[in-house]
């Protein structure tokens, strides 16, 4: 089979063989294979529930693809609430004529990413739409997790809490920007697209007192810090020089006048912890693959409620504001 045809979404034989030979094979688990109208699930603790749709363009980029993103994105949203990711749904809307090989690569990528958290896809849907109705493929994933650490909330930052970022920032936005036509640039930038659950699990196992966690997706680090400052009515004082940014990302920012703090991330989180646990949290994060470049970047104060202040290393400071306007369309 070379291309996906409208018949693959028709609900008949072609649909069934697509589901069976591609999706069931890649995502294989008992619940999914039971092939009921709805998946029957059991969760012991409180539930965290999230959904995201993925429309990223290009669908394959350095460091990932739309499939990897669709899994990591939803799994991370659960992880950020202290919930172990358990069950996902996956809905595909595919453009007629989409290459089967590409779909295979995307699905394999999803299966691989699922292993990092142990979550399972237990239900799904496939639609095929006429040419031009979507741009190649859109994916929606919804996720259920069991909350194993309660009380994590962006409304709950405490004075003197320490802010840690789990890795260098801006890589996903920079990677997608690089792939877009018209810029004519090449560089070694890989999206940071990744599952954060192992890092979160390690923090929870280490009994770290976590006030808040958020993965820095659209709007980047700037957005997360500003949202926290506003929601918790606190001030976040950040040391500019401590924010890790890798060289090629900085290069793109220099070339085009962007700010790395505004670029999206898809596998980098900001974690707010109690001051006494800060060093331990840092050590724990650095012992994980996804958090190996974690850095402390600042702390929570009451200097100017609702604002984020960036301190330079030469003695000046300024407010870090929310990024304005459309930087990059369709980056996640």
């Amino acid at each position, binding site marked *: 089979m070379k291309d996906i045809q409208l018949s693959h979404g028709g609900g008949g034989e072609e649909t069934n063989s697509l589901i069976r030979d591609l999706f069931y094979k890649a995502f294989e688990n008992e619940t999914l294979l039971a092939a009921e109208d709805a998946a029957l699930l059991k969760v012991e603790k409180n539930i965290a529930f999230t959904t995201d749709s993925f429309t990223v363009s290009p669908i394959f980029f350095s460091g990932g693809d739309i499939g990897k993103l669709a899994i990591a994105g939803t799994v991370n949203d659960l992880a950020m609430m202290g919930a172990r990711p358990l069950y996902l749904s996956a809905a595909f809307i595919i453009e007629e004529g989409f290459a089967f090989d590409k779909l295979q690569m995307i699905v394999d990528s999803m299966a691989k990413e699922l292993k990092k958290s142990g979550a399972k896809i237990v239900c799904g849907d496939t639609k095929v739409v006429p040419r031009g109705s979507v741009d190649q493929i859109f994916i929606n994933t919804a996720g259920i997790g069991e909350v194993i650490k309660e009380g994590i909330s962006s409304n709950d930052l405490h004075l003197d809490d320490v802010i840690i970022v789990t890795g260098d920032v801006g890589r996903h936005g920079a990677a997608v920007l690089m792939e877009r036509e018209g810029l004519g640039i090449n560089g070694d930038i890989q999206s940071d697209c990744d599952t954060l659950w192992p890092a979160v699990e390690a923090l929870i196992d280490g009994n770290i007192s976590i006030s808040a966690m958020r993965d820095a997706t659209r709007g980047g680090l700037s957005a997360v810090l500003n949202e926290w400052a506003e929601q918790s009515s606190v001030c976040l004082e950040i040391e500019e020089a401590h924010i890790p940014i890798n060289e090629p990302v900085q290069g793109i920012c220099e070339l085009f006048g962007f700010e790395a703090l505004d670029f999206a991330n898809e596998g980098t989180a900001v974690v707010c912890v109690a001051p006494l646990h800060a060093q331990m949290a840092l050590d724990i994060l650095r012992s994980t693959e996804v958090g190996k470049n974690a850095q402390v970047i600042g702390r929570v104060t009451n200097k100017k409620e609702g604002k984020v202040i960036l301190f330079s290393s030469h003695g000046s400071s*300024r407010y870090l504001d929310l990024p304005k306007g459309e930087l990059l369309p369709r980056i996640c």
Partner: protein
Amino acid sequence: MDNLQLKDLYEGFRDPSVIKALAKQINIEAKKLEKPLYIMEVCGGHTHTIMKYGLKQLLPTNIDFIHGPGCPVCIMPKERIDHAIALSEQKDVILLTLGDMIRVPGSKSSLAEHRAKGYDIRPLYSPMDALGIAQDNPDKKVIFFAIGFETTTPMTAALIDRTVKSKINNLFFHINHVLVPPAVDAIMADKRAKINAFIGPSHVSVISGAKIYLRIPEAYKAPVVVSGFEPVDVMQSILMILRQRNENRSEMEIEYSRSVTLEGNTKAQELINTYLHPRGHFRWRGIGDIPDSALELRPEYAKYDAEKIYADVLPQEPIDDHKLCICGEILKGLAKPHDCSVFGTACTPNKPLGSCMVSSEGACNAYYRFAEV
């Protein structure tokens, strides 16, 4: 350190210890000032550096910045933005311009909004890309809406050169290139203007050479220091200005010696002169008409001139800014963004009422985005 690494050119001129040390020296030197220093940094890139690195906070209170009109997008009057929009609406036209122009609102719409309506409008990262687009679309009329100061003008000239020599007949130009020294004269013509020193633009000077500022110190009794755009460059330039004032000198000096010479890039200058020449009048948003302050295609290249070819569809009425806008006063140092009654309320980067708010290099925009703590 006898081997220069590329990163030295970045980090070396952003070194926090050096910035702090220069700040110290500036504070010592400034004590000897008889009168306060009002430095205009002409170029928007310098405004950006000053705001991003919070340099004003490091200076004593008797030194103030007056942010100049050095932002080619900011000074584009609305009626000329409307030209771009009108051109995009013409049959079989592909309108090209540099990225910054896309979001600026004209009187009714912006290029971005028009693009969303389906008009073929494409932002370019390099003017050279226009060649490929023209060649790939032989049945379209490709119009390059050219903007920029002296820094960007030679690139348009190089594009025109290639167009003419390759005999490409479907690429046209709407020229909006402007010049720095006439703008300085226009601002200083107002006797109330407080400026008594200038930080000269970095990259305009790379192209034109520092020679274009030679008459300014004499004319206005004001030091001119041509500065690089990194924070160390700007701080060093302020120190050089201070020393001049304290020694009663008014001279043109080059701080940006690694890139600026007196002569500049003569090949670029020749290319410009081959295809472009000064036009009698050009309205600068926020300042008004400044004679000989902009360029147009030479008459022998009229067949490439979109402004002539499409003259009958291009609006000519000057469109003034909102009456509450005080950009003109801000540009002369007679007011600050915060003095404006609509700053940050009716006038924001997303819906700018005046030139200073339009792009990240306008004074009001910079104050809005990089608000000091």
